[in-house]
């Protein structure tokens, strides 16, 4: 059966109580390191069971990127693979949209907004998926 609300492409992209999407980080209560994805132990300071779930602000800065021209068969290229430092801590990788795939048009450190959009794909059961993208802020 098709699910009423779209699924999310990664487990840390979540629906809040009001039905809007957010990125769930886990912040270490001891050292402040932020991780995306479920975990109970901090790999930076090794402290256990002191991870607080936090809603990460959907913005950050471009840390590094590459322009992917050759990918797996069937994947449309070129696209920009980007690593973004998320405001408040932690980093994500994803696809940067809204900028031409040309190094002259991409500025290191540029402000990024993280948007939540339909992935444009369905799985074999016909389920829709929501994903996150990076766009220039």
């Amino acid at each position, binding site marked *: 059966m098709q699910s009423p609300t779209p699924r999310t*492409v990664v487990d840390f992209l979540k629906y809040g109580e009001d039905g809007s999407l957010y990125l769930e980080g886990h912040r270490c209560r001891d050292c402040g390191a932020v991780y995306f994805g479920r975990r109970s132990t901090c*790999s930076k300071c090794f402290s256990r069971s002191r991870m607080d779930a936090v809603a990460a602000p959907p913005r950050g800065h471009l*840390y*590094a990127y*590459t322009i992917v021209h050759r*990918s797996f068969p069937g994947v449309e290229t070129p*696209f920009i693979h980007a690593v973004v430092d998320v405001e408040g801590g932690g*980093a994500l990788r994803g696809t940067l949209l809204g900028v031409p795939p040309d190094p002259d048009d991409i500025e290191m450190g540029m402000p990024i907004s993280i948007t939540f959009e339909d992935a444009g*794909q369905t799985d074999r059961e016909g389920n829709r998926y929501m994903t996150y993208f990076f766009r220039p802020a």
Partner: protein
Amino acid sequence: MTDVYIIGTDMIRFGRFPDRSVPDIGAEAALLALDDAGLSIGDIQALYCGNLLEANAAVGQRILHLIGQTGIPVVNCANACATGATAFRLGWMDIKSGLHDLVLCVGAEKMGKGLIGSDRKPDGISTEGLLGSNTMPTIFSTLGMEHTRKWGTTLEQFARVSVKNHHHSTLNPKAMYQTETPLEDVLSSEMISYPNTKLMCSVNVDGSAAAVLASEKKVRELGLMGRAVKVRASVMTSDPYTEHDLVLPDFSTCTRLAARQAYEMAGIGPDEVDLVELHDCFATAEILHYENLFLCEEGEAGELIDRMDTYLGGRIPVNVSGGLLSKGHPLGATGIANIYEVTTHLRGEAGRRQVEGARIGLTHVVGLGNACAIHVLEKTD
């Protein structure tokens, strides 16, 4: 504890062998290394075998099925692109511990063509292109751009690494490619992932390499001191926590950690190294590792290649074998093949690509996950 020596080593010419099995090419390298040491498989007390893509298939035992079933212990190991170096280090640990006096280390791999990486499908849809990319070139290209961000490294500087390593491979009869590849050819080849073009990506080839390790007592008993090469340091690290490591694998921090430990264990500084075989899986990676191995100051890697300091005949020759970029990169064999290369120079047997007067050499590999392995080797008298 005893010192550990390499008394025999060899590799097959890297290439594509669709009609041969992994154990078959591994057996060939094993016999070549035994011949180089003047020994038989009957002399060997343990076998350490590195292979990644058939990690569950008892490749080591199947090599013995082909060259001699002596009943010795066999350990098969897989450790990403550090697999071969890991097998070598297991052999080193064995001799170092005093357990055995003679062991054989073999690395063998057969590669498919094309991109390495995984097109994982969480909950049923492909994330390739959606959440960036999962290909190997993507990782090392992004790391190159991180270097560009910090130090202004140019596309041409990255490309010159490939020109150099392809040039070196013209002097190596065991390299997959042996063709001069000028800068304009490197730059005009297909862009894979900016700034790495196709000619700035390592070559997927089949290959094997092997080394016989011995204790000091055994080397003297066999009268091999002089041609034997001493292992001055063997170090492995994994990736320590750094801010971006989980989304952008950090091969620099684990390499720096390993390099510091290796120089300390060997009791030398980077300026005492005469040649280096480092993990140039992509041209961008070699630039990073110049600094990670302390061959130059931070931020000066681009100038190092511009000045041709890492060419044969330069201040510190790097990848005179042709490197992964031109000799080829059969994952499980690579770590032992670069030990073969450095050993050959320390013995003064490298022919046209000989680094004159080489006394100390360093080998380096990294594997995604991450693993880093460094060995420092020294000529004996």
